[in-house]
């Protein structure tokens, strides 16, 4: 790093072309590392029954706005097409996968399981782990509303990191249905809701107390909302929460969380999982479970994802979906000598383990074992 900097400084001869903030170049060994890690993750995705999709770099702005919400919508790089229509550099890949599947892959067998990698562009304040151009590797499973698809997504994330030799990480798992179920009956403005969600997201209990004060909720519910950001840990947080919420949506969310937790536990992977009932943030399109992945060595998110059941309907095909992505630049520093890491072999077409709608713990145990042995396994294709 410093060597290169000295060279760059020494080369200074007055006027030089500027490089915009928030972009990166890679060369030499760094390129090999990136490509290798990408190849490893792609091989894992294939072995879980996912197919690669390559997506356009830009699309119409309006197609991104629904999923990203006004907050991220503001941070899109936009430009005009020749005919005057507004285009955007892709700020997100999930929306593009959703659009492609819903409009052009409607005869594909369900579930549609796709993975992708590539740059996304956002006008962020560069720094603190954020870049304006960054590289995502992710996958989407479309067409399964059942919880087993959620569990699969979490397990793939764990499998990927374990393959890369990363052992020190935590997946913070929440469910936006819990919070939305509590506030959905309230007759409050969008701004008020945003303020509430923001206070939960920042775990700002004093602001939360002010925000809930004028809500038409029982005192018990109010104090539960204030407590929400502190409810993180094992399954006991679900037990704590279930006594305070009665609406079906919130209760279903809690049941889902505890189900995911018990499968992860039965595979002996619970050390990687924290339930986090205060996890309410995410892109606007999330409807169910949401998660973020953190490493213990750095302060930044490695990636994240969740369930988005309404996004595809926006593009004309009502397909419940779930997915996640890694931010490559945050994963790379955690990986030691990638030269020693093996790219998993891809034995070809996946073997299908039937789930018949509901997947039992045995299926996951079985699939996890077979996959660790290097088999290519796909769950639950309807015949």
């Amino acid at each position, binding site marked *: 790093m410093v060597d290169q900097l000295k060279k760059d400084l020494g080369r200074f001869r007055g006027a030089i072309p500027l490089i915009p903030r928030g972009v990166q170049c890679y060369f030499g060994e760094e390129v090999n590392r990136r490509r290798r890690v990408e190849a490893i993750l792609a091989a894992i995705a294939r072995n879980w029954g996912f197919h690669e999709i390559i997506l356009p770099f830009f699309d119409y702005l309006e197609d991104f706005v629904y999923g990203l919400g006004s907050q991220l919508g503001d941070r899109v790089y936009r430009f005009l097409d020749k005919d005057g229509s507004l285009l955007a550099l892709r700020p997100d890949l999930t929306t593009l996968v959703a659009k492609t599947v819903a409009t052009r892959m409607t005869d594909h067998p369900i579930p549609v399981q796709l993975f992708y990698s590539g740059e996304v562009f956002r006008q962020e304040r560069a720094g*603190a782990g954020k870049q304006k151009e960054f590289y995502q590797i992710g996958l989407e499973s479309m067409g399964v509303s059942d919880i087993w698809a959620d569990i699969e997504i979490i397990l793939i994330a764990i499998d990927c990191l374990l393959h890369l030799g990363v052992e020190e990480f935590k997946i913070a798992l929440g469910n936006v249905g819990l919070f939305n179920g509590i506030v959905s009956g309230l007759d409050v403005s969008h701004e008020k809701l945003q303020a509430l969600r923001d206070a939960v997201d920042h*775990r700002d209990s004093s602001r939360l107390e002010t925000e809930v004060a004028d809500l038409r909720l029982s005192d018990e519910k109010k104090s539960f909302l204030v407590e929400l950001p502190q409810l*993180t*840990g094992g399954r006991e947080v679900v037990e704590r929460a279930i006594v305070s919420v009665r609406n079906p949506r919130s209760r279903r969310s809690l049941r889902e969380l505890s189900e995911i937790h018990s499968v992860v536990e039965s595979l002996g992977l619970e050390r990687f999982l*924290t339930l*986090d009932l205060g996890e309410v943030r995410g892109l606007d399109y999330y409807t169910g479970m949401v998660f973020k992945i953190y490493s*213990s060595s750095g*302060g*930044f*998110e490695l990636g994240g994802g969740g369930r988005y059941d309404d996004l595809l309907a926006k593009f004309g095909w009502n397909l419940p979906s779930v997915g996640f992505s890694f931010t490559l630049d945050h994963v790379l520093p955690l990986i030691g000598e990638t030269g020693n890491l093996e790219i998993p072999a891809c034995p070809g077409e996946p073997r299908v383990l039937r789930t018949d709608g509901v997947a039992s713990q045995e299926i996951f145990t079985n699939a996890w074992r077979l996959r660790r042995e290097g088999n290519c396994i796909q769950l639950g294709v309807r015949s």
Partner: protein
Amino acid sequence: MLTVALSKGRLLEPTVEFLARAGIHVPEEILSSRRLIASDADARYRFLLVKPMDLPTYVEYGVAAAGICGRDVLLEVSPDLHQPLDLGFGRCRIVLAGNPSPAAGGRNMLSTTRVATKYPQVAERYFRSRGIPVEVVYLSGSVELAPNLGLADTIVDLVETGRTLKENGLEVLEEITESSARVVVNRACFHVLHEPVQEFLRTLRRALE
């Protein structure tokens, strides 16, 4: 060992007192000498002493897992951090202040008003929310001088007692918001250092009761 960043300046003394009440003893050496980093006696905490406006940066990058700083700083810097606790001390207000009877200047009444401040983001947002066009003049100190010298029409500044304002012939035109000391926690550390972070928060909560 949990790394906690503390703000130099007006918050340092009340922070150290509060932590002592909670049973966390910031080592003397960091307070009396030029050392900016030191651990407590039973090596549970490591403290960094940083400039208030820099504190969110240390925590955002995860160099410190947690920190204690004023809400004024958080409003100005807008860091992406958890803010789980209001510690209540270091209370003050962020106000818009000006000269009650400004000398008649030659300025057009519709010209953009100028405000001098250490909090450019806060000032910008405040005027924008009121629909008033503004030119923000950033100063790093002695902001109270600006209106009298004609550098700005008003100031946005932190006020504890209001004495400095009065001595400079200024009065509060409007209160923008309140500030007090807050605990901030890095988002990743909140989960991966779950136990020590929770222990830290529990200890502080107990001292608040």
